[in-house]
């Protein structure tokens, strides 16, 4: 169970830089994630947004435009995101990171399977039989194979 505690800048800065795993310029919020192997710091800009945490083979944490995945005190994945994070999902052996205009799909151990740009903002999503359906703000839908990243159909995009 991941324990995420809101802290102030002073407490965040007490952490060694290597443990400040998510850092944003002009941050307005700070938090500490307590895992069994130690404490990790997050800083981000969006005061109304909570970090997304997914516990799996790795512990995935994302907020605003940064994503990390940790395993037993090691950073296995650390990536800037081109667009603000919306959700992190786990299905079968895939971890799906949904941002406003891009989908990133990782294998469970942290290697990147594929990325897929979207022509419009992801409004909601569903997964069925290894297919990811993304409904866009425009109401069009993009359907992807989670295995290959290939688009199965696209309507009016």
């Amino acid at each position, binding site marked *: 169970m991941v324990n995420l505690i809101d802290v102030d800048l002073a407490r965040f800065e007490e952490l060694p830089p290597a443990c400040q795993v998510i850092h944003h310029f*002009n941050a307005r919020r700070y938090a500490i994630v307590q895992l069994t192997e130690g404490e990790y710091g997050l800083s981000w*800009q969006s*005061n109304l947004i909570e970090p997304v945490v997914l516990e799996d083979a790795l512990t995935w944490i994302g907020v605003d435009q940064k994503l990390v995945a940790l395993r037993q005190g090691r950073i296995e994945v650390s990536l800037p995101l081109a667009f603000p994070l*919306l*959700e992190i999902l786990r299905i079968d052996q895939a971890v799906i990171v949904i941002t406003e205009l*891009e989908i990133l799909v990782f294998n469970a151990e942290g290697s990147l399977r594929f990325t897929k*740009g979207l022509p419009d*903002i992801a409004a909601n999503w569903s997964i069925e039989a290894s297919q990811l359906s993304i*409904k866009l703000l425009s109401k069009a839908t993009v359907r992807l194979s989670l295995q290959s990243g290939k688009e199965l159909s696209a309507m009016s995009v």
Partner: protein
Amino acid sequence: MLESAGFRIQERKFDFFFGQITSTPRNQARSLQNLEDLARLGIRVETQGRDRLMQIFAAGLTASETSPRREDEYGVTIGRTVQVESEVAKGGIEIFYLYRDGDLSSIPEVTTIIPRIYR
């Protein structure tokens, strides 16, 4: 689709920018964050905020690029930032323009924005 001063934008984007999207809890939070950050920068829907954003999107067409270009099957997306200041905050709005099929001489679509508060 609205077209104005060298760019296009879907009407529904303004719902996302001004806090009206509730499609998932996280989309709702992001939409509300946009609403709040734009308000801090002095851009509110009730005080012609939509027109102000349209002016900013037009100004952004010639602003400096602030994100690496991204290319996919839909085209090339370029992020450019316009600095914005209000009585209470100083910040910038990064605007993402999609040039369909990678044709940089075509009229781009505004796909999303990221308001940022510097102080």
